[in-house]
């Protein structure tokens, strides 16, 4: 178990015995005050995100994998090639060292999968009850791909919307793993680094205007925000949205709308209509994009609104969920 201590010795041992052996690379190794990276690109993408999740480990992932993928994906959807991440870990005293080791292993594995290095890092141990088990902040830098010209202002009516895979897996997996939930499902989080998939999407030559990963707030949150930004309507088709039977069933059981549930390994792309097929093919050629689908289109219907054409052939509005969507009572 992790003990609390302000002393540099404990921190030094934590880093030397638990972090460095697992995350070792040429940038991190010197353990200097700053990592020094080579740089050639003309434009730099830079992002940061803090991660909390309960439980720390859940089916399909853990907080470490989430922290790496979250930042890698933020860079990737901005059209950048992720290069290096920083890793700041705040741990609560009493955290089992076995859990810590598993999470660092998972960070290392996710970083390798995403082909990024953890170039610099920091650890702090806080008193019991003050750190939610573990909190991780990652920042990341990447170089902008010149083959993409992502700009929301280029979105026009008629553009197609591509989603790279099954929705709602992450949120439902975490919810079902959360302590006290009286049901279990076979669902696993979809948390994964998207840069490989996005590389193939970019290489397809399709005119992609916009990309984003639908995390908290789900697909609904992403679309609602986009609609406000571009002042154009979005029409999606329920039958086209990829979702597993298990996820659909679980969401139904909990009274949740699957389009509002979080994802951690999916990307939504708005693409010129004539390139939609090309982009879809590129997605499907990648293991993370096998279930990709064209789920809708941009329209000029006024006022700007996100609407879903339902399975039953009806229509309904799609909005950003308010706060955390909670399972219903009956």
């Amino acid at each position: 178990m992790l003990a609390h201590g302000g002393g540099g010795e404990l921190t030094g041992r934590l880093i030397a015995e638990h972090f460095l052996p697992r995350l070792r690379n040429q940038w991190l190794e010197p353990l200097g005050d700053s990592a020094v990276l080579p740089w050639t690109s003309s434009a730099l993408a830079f992002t940061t995100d803090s991660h909390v999740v309960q439980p720390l480990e859940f089916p399909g992932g853990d907080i470490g994998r989430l922290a790496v993928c979250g930042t890698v994906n933020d860079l990737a959807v901005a059209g950048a090639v992720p290069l290096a991440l920083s890793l700041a870990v705040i741990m609560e005293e009493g955290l089992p060292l076995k859990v810590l080791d598993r999470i660092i292993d998972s960070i290392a594995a996710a970083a390798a999968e995403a082909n990024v290095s953890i170039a610099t890092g920091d650890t702090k141990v806080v008193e019991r009850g003050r750190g939610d088990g573990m909190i991780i902040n990652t920042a990341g830098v990447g170089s902008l791909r010149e083959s993409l010209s992502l700009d929301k202002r280029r979105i026009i009516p008629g553009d197609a919307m591509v989603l790279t895979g099954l929705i709602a897996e992450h949120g439902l997996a975490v919810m079902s793993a959360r302590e006290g939930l009286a049901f279990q499902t076979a669902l696993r989080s979809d948390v994964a680094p998207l840069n490989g998939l996005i590389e193939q999407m970019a290489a397809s030559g399709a005119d992609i205007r916009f990309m984003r990963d639908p995390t908290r707030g789900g697909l609904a949150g992403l679309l609602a925000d986009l609609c406000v930004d571009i002042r154009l309507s979005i029409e999606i088709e329920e039958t086209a949205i990829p979702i597993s039977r298990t996820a659909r069933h679980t969401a139904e059981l909990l009274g949740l709308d699957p389009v509002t549930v979080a994802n951690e390994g999916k990307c939504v792309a708005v693409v010129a209509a004539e390139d939609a097929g090309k982009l879809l093919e590129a997605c499907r050629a990648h293991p993370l994009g096998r279930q990709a689908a064209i789920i809708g289109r941009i329209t000029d219907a006024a006022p700007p609104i996100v609407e879903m054409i339902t399975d039953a052939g009806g229509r309904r509005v799609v909005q950003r969920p308010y706060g955390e969507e909670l399972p219903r009572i009956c």
Partner: protein
Amino acid sequence: MSKTTPRQLVEQIADAVSRADRTIRLMEVCGTHTVALFRSGVKSLLPNALRLISGPGCPVCVTSQGYIDAACDLAGREDVTICTYGDMVRVPGRRGSLEHRRAEGADVLVVYSARDAVSHAAAHPDRKVVFLAVGFETTAPATAAAVLEAEAKGITNFFILSGHKLVIPAMQALLSAGDVPIDGFLCPGHVSVVIGANAYAPIVEQYGKPCVVAGFEPEQMLKGILHLVRQIGRGESRLENVYSAAVTNEGNVAARRCMEQVFVPADSIWRAMGTIPGSGLELREPFRPFDALVHFGLAIGPDYDPPGCRCGEVIQGKVEPDQCNLFARQCTPAAPVGPCMVSSEGTCAAWYKYGRIQAKSPSTQARSS
């Protein structure tokens, strides 16, 4: 028999409605139907002459303000942990909501079942764990099972604040009051799984209103509506069940027996509808030690609507959400004024989330983060 598609069902409904040549008013009793009708887009497919009125079937919405205040008072006690379904946490009471209490340091835990509350009590013997037992016949058997479990395990720090309600007495009260014209009832699948289709017989026999039990899939709801409209067109009033795959005439006898072992029907205060005789559930004598009211010497205070809120009329089908002046202006899911906007099953929330109301108040479409 080949399966009828939703499109065909919609056409048949339109046909039956136009033949009736008048406005037909159906009440979907339960909030789950309200949400499913919106979410599936079924509502958008129905003819204008067919009005669907939401009924008193959202567990949080029908809970009286007195109950909410009692729960908040309990939460204020040092030795009490409140275990509750998530929807209840944000309902504003006289002195704020449970969420406010939690921010002030009260121990309020969101659970997913009554059993979770029993486990919490077992794990924290130094706390008095009070479960906010609300809901209809869908959740009442689970509460009963939890009480039985606590008794069997000798857990003495587990209590329930019973706000459980029964569906049929509420339907009877609505019809007896007679101020809301209703031509027929779309009856909820999940409640009916427990109470059985036959439970609606009094509504059909005493009040002459057709009742059709349906599930929550679009085809199910459309079929239910079609059967109702056809009955009404022919001047019939019968009990039908289009969800016989899950709902039997007798219901789930084991679940009901469990419920009856622990609870006895009692008068209960409904939001805005007042006290309806025999419409709630009270712990039977041997289980009184589990009753939070008894243990803490509390009483449920008077009911009232939050100022300006018309939830009381909404749950009785007297007004639609957009007839409330606060709807989509001061009252949104992000800042709810009344329970009908708080609850995921609430009529106001369903209208707001899935209806085309944005044009009314552009500010409400702003990103909330």
